[in-house]
């Protein structure tokens, strides 16, 4: 069905308030059930054997000793997960990543798994499995992987998107290009051109809850899966296809999710747990260790980006050109492509070209991480924009305002923009008190902009009126940040009843139709749209029932303030019927009352943010501390402003960690050296200041309430904002993220050396 989802400009009673979340009490009392908290009768413990080698051919696997160990109920290898993907390359890559077939492609790649009566037995059994590897040369670094002579991961990988088709295989799996105009002509008009290469290291989403699931397959071919996931319908689809099951026979129940940020959009251990359960004919619980999470679940890309931007003395950008190399692990992704699409999206560019190269390396399969690929591209672009501002003597905010994309601008990735919000965030930044606050010694201030697409997708909700008139709302998008509260607010708004009369639950895959994942900032955007439509459908039934109760034509009934009201001269004196009264009469007026909606939520609208940050650098050690941070972002309409702030703050904190300390460190042996929270350093509480937020509300014209997604954009600007702050403090340009102390110290040295050279030559 096509619903009218245009923004109506209505005023709100519930939406925009800040009630308590329904999942709060369970989460503060320890009752909330996460992936590892589910237990089934007769459950076994599953465990996965992982490759210690970054690249090897599997000659043979001998599992006989493990199978013979007392307490072992199943041992599986790739042979137990046969290839049913039927030429679907994307699905085959998922399968091969879950359980290596002919080759292992990274340290941590799964090669076999066991199910045993307890963890100790499972661990023993893993040690008894003998894998005969033929070790192959490996490459983990993005630039080394594209250099001539690099070990090639796949002999059949010829760069897609290049005409004519290359004759030699390479690690560049795909090339994509975006842009318009004539960049050479654009650069010819520039007074100043800056060209630089930037690098960013690989980071992990770093959710605190490791992947965990309980799988149970019956001999009749039906199955159940309890799992922490961002998309239980997608998990059902992938697992059923990989195991050759009928999709409807696999019921997936999402548990509470202990963070995902993109990392739980992909199946890792779930198909393995199901295959173990099928073979053992018992439920199997599989929980990854933290080490496994880092080694074998998807991090973001490491990147290397060449960038060139030209500007006139008066501050007009004349051209931009970027080549972006993003690692995607051993399997092709669209990560460089997303980087290429987002890099110049904030600006009005007459001449722009971006080229994305997907680079295969012996690292775990890259997965989405909050506004995937955008932060690295923004680091490169926003750093150069800032530097250009300095070179032409213009305020960096003014330079951005001068060149900001607006309605009618052709975006760097292709289409012409409708109404967009970068201008207002920049204006708010310029006027923000943070911008003019004094700085202390060794401190610097930086700012940067960020862009993310946001999207919608397939969504459905069920809204059921209980016999007492309270409302149960069932949604199919996972609640990662407070969506249950936000969606209850939306249902309460539409029905005209108090928030606490609505209870939202996330349904399992058997209770609702298919829903896309909670990704792309779509959870609240799309499920609120479906909730509004469900509520409207329920209201039309409620009006019919009230008409029946009054015995008047339904046209004479309106819905207002949570009640059916009769209108017109003849019936206007009838006392309104409350939701509870109509619900109570339901058995006599036609049975249960509900509203449903299924839709493809479109028109999410692009999202922009501007961040301001102050850092303090210890010039002798390079240690950098963020001392003040402000996030300004458009929310369309903030349904629950406190939870919107939470998204802004959380994304900024992740970006700060990425900017300063987080990185995958590989040894020369191709093994990950810091697969734990001690040496993969996500920010701790004492590392951060309070993170101030300013929510702008520029209604999204394509949503009835004007809502936009808010989850992802906040991670995009921090890398560049911090780089610019360091630069402004010391006059050095940081080109390598994370800007760890040794890198900052090295940059300070270089700047000093350059300065003394200047003095000597002067």
């Amino acid at each position, binding site marked *: 069905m096509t619903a009218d989802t245009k923004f109506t400009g209505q005023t709100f009673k519930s939406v925009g308030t800040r009630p308590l*979340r329904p999942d709060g*009490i369970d989460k*503060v009392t320890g009752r909330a059930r996460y992936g590892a908290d589910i237990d089934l009768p007769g459950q076994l413990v599953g465990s996965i054997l992982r490759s210690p080698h970054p690249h090897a051919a599997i000659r043979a696997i001998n599992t006989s000793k493990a199978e013979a160990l007392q307490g072992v109920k199943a041992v599986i290898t790739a042979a137990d997960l046969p290839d049913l993907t039927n030429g679907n390359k994307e699905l085959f890559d998922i399968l091969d990543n879950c359980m290596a077939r002919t080759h292992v492609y990274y340290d941590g790649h799964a090669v076999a798994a066991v199910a045993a009566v307890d963890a100790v037995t499972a661990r023993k059994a893993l040690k008894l499995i003998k894998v005969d590897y033929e070790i192959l040369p490996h490459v983990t670094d993005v630039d080394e992987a594209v250099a001539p002579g690099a070990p090639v991961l796949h002999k059949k990988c010829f760069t897609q998107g290049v005409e004519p088709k290359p004759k030699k295989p390479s690690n560049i799996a795909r090339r994509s290009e975006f842009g318009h105009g004539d960049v050479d002509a654009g650069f010819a008009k520039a007074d100043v051109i800056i060209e630089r290469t930037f690098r960013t290291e690989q980071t992990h989403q770093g959710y605190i809850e490791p992947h965990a699931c309980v799988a149970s397959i019956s001999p009749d071919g039906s199955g159940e899966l309890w799992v922490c996931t961002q998309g239980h319908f997608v998990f059902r689809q992938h697992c059923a296809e990989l195991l050759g099951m009928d999709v409807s026979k696999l019921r997936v129940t999402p548990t509470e999710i202990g963070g995902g940020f993109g990392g739980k959009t992909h199946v890792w251990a779930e198909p393995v747990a199901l295959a173990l359960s099928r073979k053992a004919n018992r439920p199997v619980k599989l929980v990854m260790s933290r080490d496994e999470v880092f080694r074998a679940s998807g991090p973001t890309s490491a990147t290397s980006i060449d960038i060139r931007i030209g500007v006139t003395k008066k501050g007009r950008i004349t051209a931009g050109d970027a080549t972006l190399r993003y690692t995607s692990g051993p399997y092709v992704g669209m990560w460089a492509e997303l980087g290429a699409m987002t890099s110049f999206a904030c600006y009005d560019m007459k001449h722009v070209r971006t080229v994305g190269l997907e680079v295969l390396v012996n690292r775990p399969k890259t997965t989405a991480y909050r506004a995937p690929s955008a932060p690295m591209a923004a680091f490169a672009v926003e750093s150069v924009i800032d530097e250009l501002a300095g070179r032409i003597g213009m305020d960096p905010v003014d330079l951005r305002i001068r060149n900001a994309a607006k309605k009618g601008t052709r975006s760097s990735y292709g289409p012409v923009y409708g109404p967009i919000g970068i201008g207002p965030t920049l204006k708010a930044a310029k006027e923000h008190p943070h911008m003019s606050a004094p700085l202390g010694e060794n401190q610097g201030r930086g700012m940067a902009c960020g862009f993310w697409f946001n999207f919608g997708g397939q969504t459905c909700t069920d809204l059921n009126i209980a016999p007492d008139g309270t409302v149960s709302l069932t949604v199919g998008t996972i609640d990662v940040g407070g969506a249950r509260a936000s969606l209850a607010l939306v249902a309460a708004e539409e029905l005209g009843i108090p928030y606490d009369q609505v209870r939202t639950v996330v349904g399992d895959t058997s209770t609702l139709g298919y829903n896309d994942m909670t990704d792309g900032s779509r959870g609240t955007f799309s499920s609120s749209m479906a909730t509004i439509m469900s509520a409207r459908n329920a209201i039309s039934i409620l009006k019919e029932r009230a008409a029946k109760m009054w015995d008047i034509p339904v046209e004479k009934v309106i819905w207002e303030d949570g009640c059916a009201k009769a209108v017109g001269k003849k019936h206007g004196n009838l006392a309104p019927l409350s939701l509870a009264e109509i619900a109570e009469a339901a058995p006599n007026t036609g049975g249960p009352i509900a509203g449903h909606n299924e839709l493809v939520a479109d028109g999410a609208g692009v999202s922009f943010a501007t961040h301001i940050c102050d850092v303090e650098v210890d010039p002798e050690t390079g240690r950098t501390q963020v001392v003040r941070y402000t996030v300004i972002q458009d929310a369309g309409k903030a349904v629950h402003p*406190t939870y919107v702030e939470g998204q802004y703050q959380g994304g900024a*904190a992740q970006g700060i960690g990425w900017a300063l300390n987080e990185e995958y460190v590989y040894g020369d042996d191709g093994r990950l050296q810091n697969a734990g*929270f*001690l040496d993969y350093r996500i920010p701790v509480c004492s590392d951060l200041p309070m993170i101030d937020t300013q929510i702008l509300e520029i209604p999204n014209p394509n949503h009835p309430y004007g809502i936009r997604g808010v989850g992802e954009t906040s991670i995009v600007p921090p890398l560049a904002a911090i780089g610019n702050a360091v630069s402004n403090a010391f006059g050095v340009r940081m080109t390598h993220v994370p800007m760890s102390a040794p890198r900052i110290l090295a940059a300070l040295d270089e700047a000093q050396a350059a300065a003394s050279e200047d003095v000597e030559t002067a």
Partner: protein
Amino acid sequence: MTNLVNTNINGDAVGFACEADETLLDALRNRVGLKGVKEGCGTGDCGACSVILDGTLVCSCLVLGMEVEGRTVETVEGLSNGAELHTLQSKFIEHAALQCGICTPGFLMAAKALLKNNPDPSEEEIRYALAGNLCRCTGYDKIVRAVQATAAELREA
């Protein structure tokens, strides 16, 4: 070898069977059924498994189950007084100091230990006291505010 451990958990006498090399975290979750104690890393780096052992805040993943023989253990499950939430619990909900909630039990125990020793902590003291607890959702801002609000309310009570 399986051993029997007698201890006091959240005010109740509890006995549980335990392997010699089993951690308190695993024993609490798998033997006693206290699943509010969370495992985020198993190496003492994230604090999700924080409990209070004889009045001292510890990571239960860094304690052997057998060490708690005759001792007292407090977990998140023992924080509220029946239906009445501890002030920290209600302030965490009010201030949106939790999103996904996986780190919340550990933060609550760490904050409880902090406020017992220091009823009027500065922002910096709160930040350092909670540095052993990782949160990836909130950026800590609202957690710090919830602890500040709790401290203020408990001082007035």
